[in-house]
């Protein structure tokens, strides 16, 4: 009899588990009349705000819009180990609360945005770094990182004295490989004899390579020991370690995403930051929000490349401006890419 009751308990418990959903009516996505304009919302990728990388860049775009349009937007971070269903639920909830546009940062939001865009046809969804899903109310903001990285490669090839340069990638994912591909092509087109050290900090799904500066520091030291005197990093927050290591030995480092010469946290090392390959996520986000505010929402794929100044090489370091031969070569390469004379491959 004990056996039967225990078994029965197990069965009822699991059945109850399966049936909990049957008992309830409403869903969180049902409109509750809260559809007044509350401004824009951002759903972050892994890392969230404070990653000194593209999540922060997206937030910068949002704050600019907040100041201009006078509302308080929303920005939401993901939780660890979540699935597409959780992301879709987050986007739906933001749309239901009245936010428009709703912007997903990173390709991980591709599937969820496709789903949410169908459910909320009146809301514009922004998707950064992905163009595999499309729709009338989806705006795909994609960047030609390989073009900007090509210029970084040209700059590195001109700045090196040891003829050894380095590339440090955060996590070995296709997005970061675009940085590597452009950089390598830029270096080799300038001088095929230059040796290029390449290293990735972690493999997916381990995203530490974007967040742990000590990993970047370690990798950069290895490349510096191997005589590299210019290192280009595409490693988000972990890249701070790269910058620190290069500055310690008084070698050049090339920043990424935003103009790292101007970043306050990096001020002690800024003299060694030759230039930065900037990716204009803030303006991409701001432009989208503005278009929605002006009732003329963007739609479809918007490519932010060299021509559109979506990617660029910064020149705020005076030392960089003094290297006239270098800056001329970079300008020339930029003109050639824009004119279509140079094709930059997005894969190494």
């Amino acid at each position, binding site marked *: 009899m004990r056996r039967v009751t225990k078994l029965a308990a197990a069965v009822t418990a*699991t059945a109850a588990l399966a049936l909990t959903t049957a008992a309830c009516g409403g*869903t969180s*996505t049902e409109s509750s009349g809260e559809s007044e304009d509350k401004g824009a919302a951002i759903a972050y990728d892994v890392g969230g705000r404070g990653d000194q990388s593209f999540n922060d860049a997206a937030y910068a775009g949002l704050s600019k819009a907040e100041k201009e349009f006078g509302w308080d937007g929303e920005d939401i971070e993901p939780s660890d180990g979540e699935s597409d269903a959780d992301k879709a639920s987050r986007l739906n909830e933001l749309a239901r609360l009245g936010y428009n546009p709703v912007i997903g940062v990173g*390709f*991980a939001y591709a599937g969820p945005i496709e789903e949410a865009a169908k459910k909320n046809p009146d809301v514009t969804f922004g998707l950064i*770094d992905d163009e595999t899903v499309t729709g009338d109310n989806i705006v795909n903001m994609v960047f030609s990182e390989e073009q900007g990285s090509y210029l970084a490669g040209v700059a590195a090839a001109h700045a090196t004295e040891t003829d050894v340069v380095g590339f440090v990638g955060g996590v070995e994912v296709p997005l970061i490989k675009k940085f590597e591909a452009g950089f390598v092509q830029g270096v080799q087109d300038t001088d095929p004899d230059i040796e290029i050290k390449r290293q990735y900090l972690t*493999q*997916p799904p381990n995203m530490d390579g974007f967040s742990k500066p000590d990993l970047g520091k370690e990798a950069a030291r290895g490349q510096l020991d191997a005589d590299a005197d210019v290192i280009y990093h595409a490693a988000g927050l972990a890249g701070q370690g790269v910058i620190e290591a290069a500055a310690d030995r008084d070698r050049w480092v090339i920043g990424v995403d935003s103009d790292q010469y101007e970043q306050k946290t990096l001020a002690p090392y800024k003299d060694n930051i030759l230039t930065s390959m900037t990716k204009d996520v803030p303006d991409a986000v701001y432009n989208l929000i503005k278009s929605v505010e002006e009732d003329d929402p963007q739609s479809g794929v918007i490519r932010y490349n060299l021509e559109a100044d979506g990617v660029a090489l910064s020149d705020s370091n005076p030392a960089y401006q003094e290297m006239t031969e270098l800056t001329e070569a970079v300008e020339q390469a930029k003109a050639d890419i824009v004119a279509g004379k140079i094709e930059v491959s997005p894969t190494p």
Partner: protein
Amino acid sequence: MSDGGKPGVAAASGRPTTRARLDRLVLALGGPVLALGVAVLLTSAVLLLSGRSPVEPYVLMIEYAGNADIQVLIVNQATTYYIAALAVAVGFRMNLFNIGVDGQYRLAAMVAAVTGAAFSLPAPLHVLVIMAVAMLTGAFWAGIAGILKTSRGVSEVVSTIMLNAIATSIIAYLILPAQFGEQRGNNLTTGQIAESGWFPGFDTGPGGVVYGFIVVAALLGVVYWLVLNRTRFGFDLRATGASQSAAAASGVDAKRMIFTSMVISGGVAGLAGMPVLLGDSHTYSLVFPVGIGFTGITIALLGRNHPVGIAFGALLIAFLDKASATLDYSGYEKEIATIMQGLIVIAVVISYEAVRRYGLRRQQQKVGEELAAQAASAPGDTSQNLSKGASA
């Protein structure tokens, strides 16, 4: 069941009375309830210290969980957690700490996804092949730790953690386009599994689809209970877990038991990725959920390795995970739920020990009372009862 009568007699003859069973139930529930209560109180204390309402977050979460679509999310997440926790529990019963469930389910899901996308079979067969591949992969990966433990005495804690890292690297290599992967935008996937390889779910209408795999998860729970409590193998496993030397003395091959339970744990772990793979994503990609194996450890602890306890534990953690999403919209941080999960784990460990000690004391007290009562009654009666107990 001989309820009623003289409690002393019934207890001595090895048959629990209603009261004894109630005692056991109270003791079994006491641990988790105490832990949950302490965790809630401590979380409220944290909230108070940071100048917030100590109650509102709970209200918000419970309200949010009233929505059908959030309930579907919770149930689906609990299904995944349940399987991972069962895998951990198999090891725990054998006194093995399989921290490698995380690597085992990810590698299994990846290999199963590649296999599933490579060919197409009639519907039920296709799903079964994918599941079999997943179980075999998980079992193989855990088996390595098992062999290392039995042949070289390597602690399974160390080896499974290292195998997690190795699994990450292997997956990263295999998912490259040069091997089995396909690049889609900035994502890498293993290609879509044909529809014959999807596990049909229960459509709840506006709430969404509940993974059909929940049935498999429930069956796994039943099989887990039956094997552990109603088979020779399960007895050997529990005996070896309790004391290896004692089990060896009674003729159990301890090494074989270690290896077998590790392989079973890995096989079950292999299924942990299946609810998502067969019910939702239909491909393994860079955005496949990670870290489920570690949550499984928490839940196995919380559920005291009991299939029903684990089910409640999985639901509780899934509830905290999903319902906490609403806190961000109301000016609270959803990390409150993370704090609570951490507190629950600590509270669980402490309260289980407290309840165990209380139970022991209570038992001693009762035995003492019974002996005293028996000594007070007729001498003939007592000896009769005692001999009856000894022969039972």
